[in-house]
């Protein structure tokens, strides 16, 4: 709650919160108010397919080359973006925080093994790797989220570990130990509360990265074919050469994606300045 108040002190953080709030509302109610389904073809009164129509009263944002309503697709895509963002953030932060806590606190060979694992993770180029994995199985939203989690946990783990290392050397930890607290108790009661702010920060960054990576994979054609995401829309538009012919098809998903990602980043940034006042501009 206190973090929220701090974010609101920054104009950019406030703007970010508003934008994300609007997207969140759209994700919930969007599919209810969308005039069409994400894959539904729109027909004219004479039953011909309404292909590549400019934005009009019938289709606010126009239609695609297959006669699908861009506005509706955008609303459905918002839901997909939020699901992917939230789940991949939660997954990666839990995984990363646990690894970081364990490695940093216990040290020794446990630390060595876990850190070498993160090294391996850092050596894997995400997009190419994810494309190969998706080629093996059938593409699905769950798999995309899983891959994003496997890509994002490594940074969180390293940062949390470093934080734990510095916490471990602080007097209050010795004091707790001198007072007879066991490892588990120290870890849960004394160290975890102190790394949680960082975990939240990386969760925010995780939402951003998750949405961006899903969009990138879908744009490359490796997204879930049954989920209409902004990346899927861009992929279809790109394949159909809409950059030349149908700006109304390209801009909405691109702008929505950019807005969402930038808004999350601004929130994360404001929150980060709270954690690390040195970053402050003034």
């Amino acid at each position: 709650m206190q973090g929220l108040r701090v974010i609101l002190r920054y104009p950019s953080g406030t703007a970010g919160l508003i934008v994300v709030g609007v997207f969140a509302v759209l994700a919930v109610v969007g599919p209810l108010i969308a005039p069409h389904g994400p894959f539904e073809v729109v027909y004219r009164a004479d039953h011909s397919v309404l292909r590549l129509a400019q934005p009009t009263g019938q289709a606010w944002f126009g239609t695609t080359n297959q006669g699908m309503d861009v506005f509706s697709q955008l609303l459905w895509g918002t839901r997909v973006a939020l699901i992917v963002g939230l789940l991949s953030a939660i997954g990666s932060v839990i995984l990363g925080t646990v690894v970081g806590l364990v490695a940093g606190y216990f040290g020794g060979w446990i630390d060595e093994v876990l850190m070498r694992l993160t090294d391996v993770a850092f050596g894997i180029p995400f997009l190419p790797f994810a494309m190969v994995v998706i080629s093996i199985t059938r593409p699905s939203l769950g798999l995309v989220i899983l891959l994003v989690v496997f890509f994002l946990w490594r940074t969180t783990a390293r940062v949390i570990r470093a934080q734990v290392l510095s916490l471990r050397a602080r007097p209050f930890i010795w004091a707790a130990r001198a007072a007879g607290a066991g490892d588990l108790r120290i870890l849960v009661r004394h160290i975890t509360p102190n790394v949680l702010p960082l975990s939240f920060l990386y969760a925010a960054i995780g939402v951003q990265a998750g949405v961006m990576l899903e969009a990138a994979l879908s744009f490359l054609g490796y997204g879930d074919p049954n989920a209409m995401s902004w990346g899927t829309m861009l992929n279809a538009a790109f394949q159909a050469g809409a950059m030349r012919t149908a700006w109304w098809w390209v801009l909405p998903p691109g702008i929505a994606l950019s807005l969402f990602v930038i808004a999350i980043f601004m929130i994360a940034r404001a929150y980060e300045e709270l954690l690390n006042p040195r970053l402050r501009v003034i």
Partner: protein
Amino acid sequence: MAAVLRRVLLLALTVWCILSIMFVLFKLLPGDPATIFVDNNMPMEMIEHQRQLWGLNDPWWVQYLRYIVNMALFRFGDSFFQNQTVADILAEKVANTCAMIVPALLVSVVFGTILGALAGWKRGSRFEQATVTTSLLLHSAPSFFMGILVLMVFSYQLRWLPPGGMVSLGGPEGFWAMIASRDYLKHLILPGLVLVSREITGPILLVRSSMLEVKGSDFIDILRAKGLTERRILVHATRNALLPLVTYIAVMTGLLLQGQVLLEIIFAWPGIGRELVTALGDLDYPVAQAALYVMALVILLLNLLADVLYGLIDPRSR
């Protein structure tokens, strides 16, 4: 020296892990060479022969060892479909990717450092505000949409610049002839612009914040008291502020490589990322796995380089 040796050994360990993961992945991919080249009408003996040829009848550990050794020695074999060795194909594609990345990186690092140093030095100025805000926006924006956007505007609407490729059809042959041509420069502008607009933000933000830290150091006061010019003092401060940048550049290049796939698709740039996408689509596995391996290896080597370089330029770590 021991530390460097340790790093190299760890790198080998990491490469081995990644190769093992890749071995499993590519074993699991649908279809193997035998089934791809074999059609159903082929007699069993021929299929068997194919399997023998590709070593698919050997025990898995023999196949595994052969795979690791081949990869480690860069023996990637032949492409399934292109009449070339994988190594030749990749060499060409890597060079093309470099032709896009290297100029963009140079511009980003040089100008990013200068802008970041100035922003940090003039703390609180309007220049700092503008630079930081723009950088934050560009840093967080999805660059592949920016790619699409600049294509729409500059190629399709205004028709100022070519919409993709590295050179026009019928352009100069041979890598260096291409690089030397104006045609290549024209093709480089748009993808280069998109790359720079994102990559430049890293050095700007990083150098700015480390500049702020250096600026508060005591030795800056002494330099001023020594009667050095502001410019000399700025050089001292920048030299100190650059230390973290070296590590960052390597990391940034690694990240850039991962996003490279997207830019190469959008701008139809015949680089390694686009080759990977094509190879995966064509089920040309030797090319795909070698491309993935080369990318991973480059990222790992860059990280190693970052560590070693940092040791060289920061006297305190010697």
